[in-house]
């Protein structure tokens, strides 16, 4: 990938982002018009300015940035990026399945389509217009790899009993695809990409276990919802599922991560410290883990260009888009700035309280 292409990719300064909290939608639109989001934001008319237009503009910007990265990449890196974009393809397939299940109007359902990947609005419209049931959607997808995955789930469960099982199967499939593409990389690139994927998988699995435990989900059923494993092997996850309270669970995992990457140690020490906190807080800490790993990789390998730059940028960009969406929604619903700030995914070394005081 050309160095100049990477250098053109920019993120918003965290303090600028924080200053947007509590501002009205017009002020946010105005601020974003002078940022990497200017092209997409310029398409939002001030007369029709609302949350959904801003959300669409933010998502469009992420999709455009991602496509630019894919365009400038080559070889195995390009293949990895394409595999990563499949996350958004399956998000669109999930949206189609849910829309068909809920019998939502086609045009309304198309608003939920993420503009990235091969499942664009036209392809999704074609499926939505012809499919009358989830089975029809699966038939329409039979020419794609996703159709085979979904058919396998239907055959295994003797019908469609639960949409979440179809969704989980798609998630697992994409993570396996990403993992396969990472294996094609070599040297430091492979190690960095593997570290980033592993921490993502581990956080997803730990989050699922915490939620499953809180909802008293049967352990055997809970296993179905786990993604392919990362640093935490299947045996470790099974052990964790057998532990009743969150504190003991975190103590156990903290001991295991002693030998893991330093970011794991940092995250699980924090989780152990806050093990009495509500589940949403633990989820927020886990959500930060891939971001922390991305920043760590950037600092660790800053002397030369490698896959870490790209993957960290994608991760940070997604976190930024999600944070902006959170700020816009908070502004629309007049949520107090302190509450909005709590929901943002920010790196730990940034001091939020100081900036929020400045902005308010």
């Amino acid at each position, binding site marked *: 990938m050309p160095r100049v292409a990477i250098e053109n990719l920019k993120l918003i300064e965290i303090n600028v982002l924080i200053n947007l909290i509590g501002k009205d939608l017009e002020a946010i639109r105005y601020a974003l018009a002078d940022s990497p989001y200017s092209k997409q934001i310029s398409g939002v008319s001030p007369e029709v300015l609302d*949350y*959904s237009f801003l*959300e669409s503009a933010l998502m469009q910007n992420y999709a455009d940035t991602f496509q630019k990265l894919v365009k400038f990449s080559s070889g195995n890196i390009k293949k990895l990026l394409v595999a990563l974009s499949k996350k958004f393809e399956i998000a669109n397939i*999930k*949206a189609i*399945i*849910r*829309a068909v*299940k*809920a019998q*939502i109007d086609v045009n309304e*359902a198309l*608003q*939920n389509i993420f503009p990235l990947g091969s499942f664009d609005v036209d392809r999704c419209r074609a499926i939505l217009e012809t499919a009358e049931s989830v089975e029809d959607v699966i038939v329409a997808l039979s020419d794609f790899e996703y159709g085979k995955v979904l058919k396998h789930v239907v055959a295994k469960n003797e019908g469609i009993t*639960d*949409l*979440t099982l179809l*969704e*989980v199967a798609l*998630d697992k499939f994409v993570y396996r695809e990403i993992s396969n593409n990472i294996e094609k990389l070599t040297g430091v690139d492979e190690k960095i990409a593997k570290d980033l994927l592993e921490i993502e998988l581990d956080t*997803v*699995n730990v*989050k*699922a276990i915490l*939620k*499953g435990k*809180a*909802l*008293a*989900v*049967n352990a055997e*059923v*809970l296993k179905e*919802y*786990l*993604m392919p494993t990362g640093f935490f092997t299947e045996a470790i996850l099974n052990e964790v599922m057998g532990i009743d309270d969150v504190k003991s669970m975190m103590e156990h995992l903290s001991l295991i991560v002693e030998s893991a990457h330093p970011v794991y140690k940092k995250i699980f020490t924090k989780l152990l410290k806050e093990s009495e906190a509500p*589940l*949403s807080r633990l*989820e927020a800490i886990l959500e930060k883990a891939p971001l922390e790993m991305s920043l760590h990789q950037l600092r660790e390998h800053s002397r030369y260009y490698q896959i870490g730059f790209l993957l960290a940028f994608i991760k940070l960009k997604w976190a930024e888009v*999600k944070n902006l*969406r*959170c700020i816009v*929604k*908070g502004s629309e*619903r007049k*949520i107090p700035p302190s509450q*909005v700030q709590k*929901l943002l995914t920010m790196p730990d070394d940034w001091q939020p309280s100081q900036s929020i005081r400045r902005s308010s």
Partner: protein
Amino acid sequence: MADEKLDVHPTRLELLRLKRRKALAEGIADILQKDLETLIVALIEHAQRVHSIRTSLKESLSAAYSLFIESEMLSGTKKVSEIALSVEPLDFDVEVNTTAGVLGIDFPDFQLAKKEADTTKPRFNLSDTPIQLEESASKSAESLKFIVRLAESTAIIREMLEIIALKRRQINRIRFKIIPQIDVTIRYVELILEEIERQDSIRVRVLQRKRKERVVK
């Protein structure tokens, strides 16, 4: 408006009957007044209960709403609405019965008949949905309990208000219609009886005078 007297014979027996009817009417009015007071006390208690249920409902719905907003902030409005529309809805019904309440009056009894949740599988995708959405859904389900209790108390209050209005009408009818009518009739009968008594005494005096005159002759 002057009270109309009852159509009775102005006799001593009727006067006694009227006085007995008046005492009975006053007794009934007193009993009804006590019932009314009991009902008002029960009504106040129910109104206080409604206030506390409404506060709990407001807290529960506010918590559900803010958790829902948080989930929208984390996952986006489109995704949350898409998930909400496709998830299996909660299966519940309200059973309506009656139960003996204050003064033995039948009051409505609402019971939330909720189908036992299937704990073997989660309602939402564990790896793709923020916990806030799950918490919001369970808070909303919890609110149903308060909504049913609030509906029950509101129905009881409505029933009590109807009974209170009925009792008040009965008391008013006795105090301001029946008793004044009896009073007027009693006064009328008494007047007639007094008049008869006066005529009798004049007649007696006339007879006595005539007898004396006959003796003198």
